[in-house]
Each structure stands twice: as C-alpha cells, then as structure tokens.
C-alpha cells in the first residue's frame, strides 16, 4: 500500500479515535488516565458533529454527547467528525475541538497566563515612581520589556499547547495499542456495542482488560 493510501484511505481511524474518547470518558465518568500524565478530567462539551457521507448531525449543548440524538446518529452509522473537549489536568483547564480525520486542534483555549509581561509588578511600580525620569532610556526599557513579555507569553502558550498535545498523543498511543491488535475486536468492540445499545457495561472489567492490552503493547 502506498503512503498516500495509508493516509487517505485510513482517515476513518481518526473518527474511531474520537468515538473511543467519547466512550471511555463516559464509562469512566469523565476521568481518563495515561501512564505518563495520571488521571485527568476529559469530556465532550459544547458540540459534537457526527456524519456519514454528506449527512451530518450537529448537536450543541452543555453535554452534547449525552443527548439522545448523539447515540441515535451512531446507530444510523454516523461517526464523530469533530467534537469539542474539556481537559482538566490538576489546576489547569483547557478547551478545544478536535477534527477527527486530520487530528487537528482548533479553538484551543489555554489556562490564563498569569504574567504576560504587560503588567508591572508592585516592586517595578515602586521603582518606577521613585526613579528620576529618563525619557529615552525609559522608552528603550519599555520596548525591551514588551519584547520580553511577548517572548514569555509565547513560551507559556507553547508549553501549555504541548502539554495538551502530549496528553492527546498518549491517548492516541493507547488507542492504537488496542485498535491495531486483537484486543480491539475482543475487548473494545463488544464494549462499544453494549454501550451503544444501552446495556449494562462492567466498566471496571473493561478497564482491567484494556489496561492489560495497552501494557502488553508498551512492553514490546
């Protein structure tokens, strides 16, 4: 198979990844785990779009994935195309949407960056008030401070962006461990079907089985 086919003809895997995230966040009560990051809050909020061909179902709301139409769309063969997620890791909270077939992030809102360099600290204010004014030097300092603030804000934003990307990457790694092995058909698909049918699902039992499969892949 050519590289282009591996990319283009398997984009549906991105949709299955979104479905799996939705499924696990629901059965694990909105708390997911990766080996690297531990536990974190993760759930669908605001919007989910499911589609098959040209037919799409767009559901908006506080918890759109819980809407009856969401699973109804799945039963009709539609798969998640895009969903908006909330991610809570420790004190930090982010929101973003994920486009399934490109695994592209959008509208990523990052936790507030406390110091963007624009606001002087109390100490700086005091020093500024007591210091004699030197117009030229002051303008140079201001420009330098602005540049430093810009750089600092950029680094903060990139750190936080990479943290979100890192979590998604680990989730994708776990998903692939299941999807590309026998455990997908043995463990995940039956659980997905039960979940979709509204049947009782033993989440703890599922967790033990899937953890074992993920760990087996990691040890290879």
């Amino acid at each position, binding site marked *: 198979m050519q590289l282009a086919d591996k990319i283009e003809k398997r984009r549906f895997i991105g949709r299955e990844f979104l479905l799996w995230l939705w499924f696990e966040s629901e059965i694990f009560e909105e708390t997911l785990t990766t080996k690297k990051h531990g536990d974190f809050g993760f759930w669908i909020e605001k919007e989910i779009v499911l589609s098959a061909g040209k037919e799409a179902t767009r559901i908006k709301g506080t918890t759109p994935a819980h809407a009856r139409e969401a699973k109804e769309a799945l039963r009709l063969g539609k798969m998640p195309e895009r969903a908006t997620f909330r991610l809570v890791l420790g004190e930090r909270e982010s929101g973003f949407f994920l486009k399934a077939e*490109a*695994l*592209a*992030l959008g509208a990523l809102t990052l936790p507030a960056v406390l110091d963007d360099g624009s606001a002087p600290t109390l100490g700086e204010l005091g020093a500024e008030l007591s210091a004699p004014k030197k117009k030229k030097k002051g303008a140079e300092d201001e420009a330098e401070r602005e540049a430093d603030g810009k750089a600092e804000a*950029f680094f903060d*934003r990139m750190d936080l962006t990479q943290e979100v*990307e890192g979590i998604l990457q680990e989730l994708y790694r776990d998903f692939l461990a299941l999807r590309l092995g026998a455990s997908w058909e043995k463990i995940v698909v039956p659980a997905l079907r039960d979940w979709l049918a509204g049947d009782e699902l033993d989440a703890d039992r599922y967790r033990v089985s899937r953890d074992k499969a993920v760990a087996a892949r990691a040890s290879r």
Partner: protein
Amino acid sequence: MSLFRGSLTYARFFVDPALSEPTTGNFADRFLEKLAAHPFEPLDPEGEAAERIGWCRVGEPFETSFIYEDLFFNEFMNIGFRLDRWVVPPSLLKAKTREAETAYLAKKGRERLTKKEKAELKDMVSKKLRKQLAPTTRIVDLSWSLNDGVVRFFTHSTSVGAAMSELFRTTFGVTLIPEAPYTTAARLGLTADEETAWVDLEPTILVTEETAPRERGAR
C-alpha cells in the same frame, strides 16, 4: 487567532528528522539567508500572476526583512506566511468586459469578436480593474519547533497549507508531512505487525444485524 494571543487553531506538519537541516553551527544565519531569498513580494496589477506567496514577519505583513530577534524564540522559529490574491468580482468583470467588447466592435465597425480578441479584452479589463482594487491578503502564523521537528501552521485550510508546504520546501529544502491518523501513528512508532494491521484496517461496524432489531424493538 495567532501565535501570541487568543485561542489557537492550527494544523501540524512533521519534519522528517532525516531530511531536516541540522540545527547546529550557524544554522540561524542559514535560515535567515533562506528566508531572505523568499520574502513576500506584492502583486503587480500589470503582471500575469493571479496570486503570490512569501514570508513576512509574524504580525507584520509588510515587513519582509528578517532579523534574529524577531524570528527565533529559543528552539522555535516563528514566521508569517502571506498569500495575496487578485479577486475581481465576476459580475463586475463580466459587465466591464461586455462594455469593452461593445466599444471595440464599434471602433472596428464589426459585429463579432474572435476568440483571441475576446480573451485579450478580458485580460485587459481584468488588469485595469486590479488597479482599482486591492488584492485579498491572508496572513498565517507559523511556528517551527526545531527540536521536535513539528511545524504548527495556524489555519485548517488545506489549500493554504499546501501552498505553505510548497514554499517551505522551496525555502528550506524540507518536505512537510501533514498530520493525519497514519502520519501520527508512524511518528509514534509502529511495529511491523502493526504496519500490516494498518493496511488491513476496516471501519468498525457498531450496529450489526443482531443488535439493530433489538434497538428498534426497544424503542
């Protein structure tokens, strides 16, 4: 939505480490030279080009000279991608072309135009209209994380992404690999068995013939 403020919407591209220029020695000078060879240059209304692409500074679309301090933020290289395009409203072009055709026929005392004359008149009108219009401008921020070989390009437009990739290849001699389920999987590392499994993948069927009637019956 940009690199420095607001929410972030972007597509990732991977740089093959084997193809990536080593970031050692005077790499910054080399990058600056390469960028200087591909700055954004404004469109000429008289010219043949309908669109033009090039690099500019982030947040400064008219600034096409590059200095180290504006470009490099530790391991990140941040630049602006600018794309200008002539967009003449089709209805305006049609009306003005018709006007020109009528005037031309009257001047020549003829009733019909040749195909070539028609095309030439349309081109002339289009160029005349360009002088009265400003091209549409699109500026997209780009951040290249040199350490991990990831380029973040702040739009989801595939056509703009493709134009940027081409300019990136011309500028740096590096082919960008767009993020997709497969390229991300390959980057994470697939075993030989998993590569085979990838080729054999079929979409998961959630609703089977056995479950579908049960669902219908439950309603």
